């Protein structure tokens, strides 16, 4: 058949669009839209969830995640530097810690902190209530992951950078702080964003500690309403809330990356 490669590409793309269109139309025509709306988009339930879903649940999810991420980042930084240390015991300690917390399900860490600690130390619990447990658990797990990311980032900075900094008279720690780490963080911005998004979702595990009206976060809030109403609408609402957190985050990071690229 006499058809130029360009024509063939156009035809193939046209077929793809048609298939997509057919699937969408079939889904709309064949699905029971009335029932779907009743089960998943019940406007009365949506209205009833406001404003608490934002003022309490979303706020708590952001708070728990942010605290956990900041603690995890600091911990990851320390662990990464220990992993790169010439001192053997530091390296072994960091490696052991990383392997341990990276391999554990976050669920287990949350249970250990919320249930295990009071059993191990009668009459005591993790300070700070839900925020304390979330910060510690997300930080320990996230820190173990981020430590490896940060280490890889530091190692990706060419050795010539340290040599140039040291040649100018900078001590090792100054060269690290002013020259290596800023460059490492530009390299690892995308995987760190990934980690932050994962932590946002893992923050729901704090329900294991129990919650009150004031400390409830998105997932538990959704589940409460779901149990009351026997309707899936709350899940749709909280899903959208999670996207409200993560999508703008991705946009901001993409901007940051673009800016870093211009300077590269």
């Amino acid at each position: 058949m006499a058809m130029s490669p360009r024509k063939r590409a156009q035809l193939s793309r046209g077929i793809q669009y048609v298939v997509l269109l057919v699937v969408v139309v079939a889904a709309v025509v064949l699905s029971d839209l009335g029932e779907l709306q009743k089960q998943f988009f019940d406007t009365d339930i949506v209205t009833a969830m406001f404003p608490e879903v934002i003022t309490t649940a979303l706020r708590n999810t952001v708070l728990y995640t942010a605290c956990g991420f900041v603690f995890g980042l600091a911990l990851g930084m320390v662990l990464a530097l220990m992993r790169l240390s010439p001192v053997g015991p530091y390296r072994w300690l960091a490696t052991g810690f990383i392997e341990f917390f990276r391999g554990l399900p976050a669920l287990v860490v949350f249970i250990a902190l919320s249930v295990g600690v009071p059993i191990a130390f009668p009459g005591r619990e993790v300070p700070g209530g839900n925020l304390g447990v979330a910060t510690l658990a997300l930080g320990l797990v996230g820190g173990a992951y981020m430590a490896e990311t940060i280490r890889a980032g530091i190692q990706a900075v060419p050795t010539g950078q340290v040599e140039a900094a040291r040649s100018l008279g900078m001590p090792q720690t100054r060269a690290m702080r002013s020259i290596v780490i800023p460059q490492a963080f530009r390299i690892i911005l995308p995987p760190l964003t990934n980690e932050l998004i994962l932590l946002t979702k893992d923050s729901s595990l704090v329900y294991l500690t129990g919650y009150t009206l004031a400390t409830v976060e998105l997932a538990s809030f959704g589940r409460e309403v779901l149990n009351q109403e026997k309707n899936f609408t709350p899940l749709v609402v909280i899903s959208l809330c999670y996207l409200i957190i993560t999508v703008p985050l991705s946009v901001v990071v993409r901007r940051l990356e673009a800016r870093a690229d211009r300077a590269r």
Partner: protein
Amino acid sequence: MTEPQIKPGAPAIDVNDLHKYFGSHEVLKGIDFHVDNGEVVCVIGPSGSGKSTLLRCVNLLEVPTSGSIFVEGVEITDPDIDVDKIRSRIGMVFQSFNLFPHLSVMGNLTIAQQRVKNRSKSEAAQIARKNLEKVGIPEKEDAYPAHLSGGQQQRVAIARALSMDPDMMLFDEPTSALDPELVGDVLAVMKDLANEGMTMMVVTHEMGFAREVGDKLVFMDDGLILEEGVPSQVLADPQHDRTQAFLSKVL
């Protein structure tokens, strides 16, 4: 830690019986080497001869296995010495420039001035501008290294080193990574520096520069200094077989 005391009148660089091993491989096999104040010494030799390692030993980017190195009369191979103090007096220029890519040209020139010499931001910027002027690219202070040509990057690197007010400059094949048409700009800057009386140790393949600007030429091969002398004489009438062989290939 001992505060290094400069001894006036001492040679800029004095290397005695220097040995350096990488693992079991002996790269420097007993080097005696000497640079006087205000002198320009060029080091030539085939790749793998140890000339870059020798240069890197002078500011302790490589730690010598044995032997001693004195810089302005201070023994830098003394394990108790404050290396950072010594290094801030020795400017270093690399083959691959090693500019800091996350900082603007101005940031590259001021960061060590502020962090190491504790100069104020405005004072550091003033000194940086003076040095950018000197290397011929005053208009690039806001540019980032990635937006500069190789020749411009290397001139920024020279300005960065000069901004620390070094007593001497080390150049590690400063033009080897440059496109041929950009080599001249960098050599011109180096020539100006030499004419101002800067003490310089230059590892190079630029025989023209060595002849024209160098006070002394040192030929190294296989971890040893085989021949040294006035550049024009060494280049025109090499005494050692291996110097002759090397020069016949590069000239």
